[in-house]
């Protein structure tokens, strides 16, 4: 079923809650994507052939949540959020300025992130924060979907006044392990779609539903990758 999906979000459809409105078409329509209203509204014409992969659903599985929780507990921390997947323009990835020309300025990456808490001795405040892994999803020269772990970033609040050093060292030490764990999860999430030879790929905020009507979604927690087969 070809569908026109319109997403409206105050901070842009990929950054917070958005209103989604889907209109079904009786015939097929070609792909078209337009942004208007200063980036507030995204309209996507989605052809019949579209193959949508709900990355949030595929990545934040019970198995992934369990593995992350277990790894955090082993490091003296606890998971305090769902695992979120969000579309992030390259220009707003935190390490953008370290090598700004690493990607095209219009490229969009996917961020997989989650919150944690580290309980500390009585003389320090507890530390909370977020670990984010940025992945580059792309079509290779043969038109097949590939996923690449591009980088990682963490943020910490609290842990003062005496515990910040060990906590930061622990987070630095944990990042390579987190990245290594994300790669097989990503490969598994993309496995079914990667066999399709595609001519185009694009992101949709939320779960990529096509059901006609209006609904509310959240672009900070879920992201859909859509492919048009060649």
């Amino acid at each position, binding site marked *: 079923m070809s569908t026109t999906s319109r997403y409206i979000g105050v901070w*842009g459809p990929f950054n917070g809650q958005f209103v989604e409105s889907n209109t079904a078409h009786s015939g097929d329509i070609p792909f078209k994507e337009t942004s208007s209203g200063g980036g507030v509204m*995204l309209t996507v014409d989605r052809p019949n052939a579209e193959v949508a992969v709900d990355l949030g659903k595929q990545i934040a599985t019970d198995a992934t949540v369990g593995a992350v929780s277990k790894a955090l507990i082993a490091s003296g921390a606890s998971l305090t959020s769902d695992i979120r997947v969000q579309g992030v323009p390259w*220009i707003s990835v935190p390490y953008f*300025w370290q090598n700004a020309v*690493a990607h095209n300025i219009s490229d969009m990456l996917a961020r997989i992130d989650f919150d944690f808490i580290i309980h500390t001795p009585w003389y320090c405040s507890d530390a909370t924060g977020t670990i984010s892994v940025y992945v580059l999803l792309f079509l290779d020269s043969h038109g097949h979907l590939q996923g690449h772990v591009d980088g990682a970033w963490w943020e910490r609040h609290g842990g003062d006044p005496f515990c910040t050093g060990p906590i930061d060292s622990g987070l630095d030490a944990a990042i390579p392990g987190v990245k290594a764990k994300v790669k097989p999860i990503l490969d598994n999430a993309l496995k079914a779609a990667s066999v399709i030879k595609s001519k185009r790929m694009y992101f949709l905020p939320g779960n990529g539903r096509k059901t006609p009507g209006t609904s509310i979604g959240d672009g900070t927690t879920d992201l859909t990758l859509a492919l048009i087969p060649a």
Partner: protein
Amino acid sequence: MEIQKMIDDAKTFLRNAGFGEITSQGDAARAVVAGRTSEATAIFQLSLGNDAKAPVHVQQGAREPRPADVKSVPAFAGMASLAADPTGAKMLAELSKQVAAVKPSQK
């Protein structure tokens, strides 16, 4: 170009690209057009409305090189629409130029 005009252009650029309104106003916008790296990063985060998530402390992990066999990457739709507009394309080209001019020591 007068600094105020550069600030206005940067703010317009970010707004048109779908980054929302700049919340930290002039100082950060000035950093964007001047190519000052840490402040420029801050503005992009702030302009995305991430103020509530602004960290007390941030540190990054290592990043990997881009794979060689990349043919197509999803585009940020706001940026693509901006590029289709002549004024937007001019601003995008200017920003790309500034980005490309960032020296390794500034990265």
